[in-house]
C-alpha cells in the first residue's frame, strides 16, 4: 500500500530535498510514523502531541483532515496527502 505525501518547501530539509515521498499507513497517524522512520524530524514539525500544529494544514485527496478525523483519518492505497502551511486570502 503506497500513499503519496507532498512535502512543502520548508520541510524538504528533512527529505533530502524531495518534493514527494512515498509512505504507508492505515491512518494519517500511522503514515506520519512511517514518514518519520525514513525522514527523521518531519513528524514533529507537523504534529504536536496528539494534534496537528496550528499553522499546518494536511489534506487527503484535497480534503482537510481536521474535518475527517484528524490523525485518525483513514487512508487507502493511492491516496494523496498534501501538507501546507496555513496562508491568508482576501
Amino acid at each position, binding site marked *: 500500500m503506497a500513499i503519496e505525501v507532498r512535502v512543502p518547501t520548508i520541510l524538504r530539509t528533512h527529505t533530502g530535498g524531495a518534493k514527494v515521498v512515498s509512505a504507508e499507513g492505515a491512518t494519517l497517524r500511522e503514515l506520519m510514523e512511517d514518514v518519520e522512520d525514513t525522514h527523521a524530524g518531519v513528524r514533529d514539525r507537523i504534529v504536536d502531541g496528539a494534534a496537528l500544529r496550528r499553522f499546518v494544514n494536511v489534506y487527503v485527496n484535497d480534503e*482537510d483532515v481536521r474535518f475527517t478525523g484528524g490523525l485518525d483519518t483513514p487512508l487507502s492505497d493511492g491516496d494523496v496527502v498534501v501538507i*501546507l502551511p496555513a*496562508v*491568508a486570502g482576501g
Partner: protein
Amino acid sequence: MRFDSLLDSVGRTPLVGLPTLSPARDVRLWAKLEDRNPTGSVKDRAALAMVSRAETAGLLRPGCTLLEPTSGNTGIALAMVARLRGYRLVCVMPENTSPERRQLLAMWGAEIVPSPAAGGSNEAVRVAKELAGDHPDWVMLYQYGNAANADVHYETTGPEILADLPDVTHIVAGLGTTGTLMGVGRYFREHRPQVRIVAAEPRYGELVYGLRNLDEGFVPELYDASLVDARFSVGPRDAVRRTRELLETEGIFAGISTGAILHAALAQATRAVRAGEPADIAFVVCDGGWKYLSTGAYEGTLDDAEASLEGQLWA
C-alpha cells in the same frame, strides 16, 4: 430597483440556478452572483460594513487614512467606499497579483504599498502591521479579525440565501479571510443547523507558501472551525477547468476562485447523487473574471493556464 446611492445598492444579489451543470432533477446547483455588487465582488459587503461600524464607533474622522492588507477585492471595495465617504486608503498588496487589480485600486484613488511575492497574503499582513505601528494615526480595519466582516454575512448573505432557497442543503464558499463562511455559517447553525457548510480554499504554487518557519503560518482571527463541516483545497488546474465549464455551460463569466468553489460544490453534488439524496447546493460567485484576464486563465490549454498561474495569487 431604485437606490438612493451606489452604497445603498450593495448586496441583495441574484441566486441563479444552473440547469445544465446540476447533475440530477433533485440535485441542483445555485449560484449567488456576488459579482453584481458595485465594485464587482462579494467584498463590497465587508468593506461597507467595516467602514460603517468604525464610523459608528467614532474611529474615523473626515480625511482619515485607512490601511488594509489585501490581495485585491477587499482593497478595491474599500477604495470605492473610502472615496465616497472621504477617506484616504493605503493598501498593502502582494506583488504577484494581477495588474488589473492595481489599476482598479489606483482608479478609485487608493495608494498601493507592494509586499514581497514569496509568502503571499501572509507577507501583506505582516507589512501592514508594521506600517500600522509606524503610523498610529492610521486606521487598519483589518478584515481578518474585524467582526463586521463576518457579521455582515450573518445579517445579509445568509438570510438572502435562505429566503431565495428555503430548502437549501449545502452552502459552499471560498475561504480567505473566512468572513463569508463565518457569517453565513453562524446564521445557518442558528436557523437551519442541518445545512452543510463547505469551504473551498485555493492551493497556490510553492512560492506563495514561502520559506518561513511553519510556526509563522496564518489563521485569520475570525476563523472558527466549528462553523464549517468540510474544507477542500483546490489547485489551479481544477479551478480553471471549472471556471471555464461555468462559462461554457451556464454563461457565467466568473473569477478563478469561483472555479475552485464550484469544484467543491460539484463534489458535494456527486456525493448526493451517489447517496440518492436530494440536494440544493448554493455556492458563492465571488467576482467576475475581468480582473484576471491577464493571468492567462481564460486562454489556451489547461496546461498553459496552469503554467501561467504558477506563483500568482490567483484567488
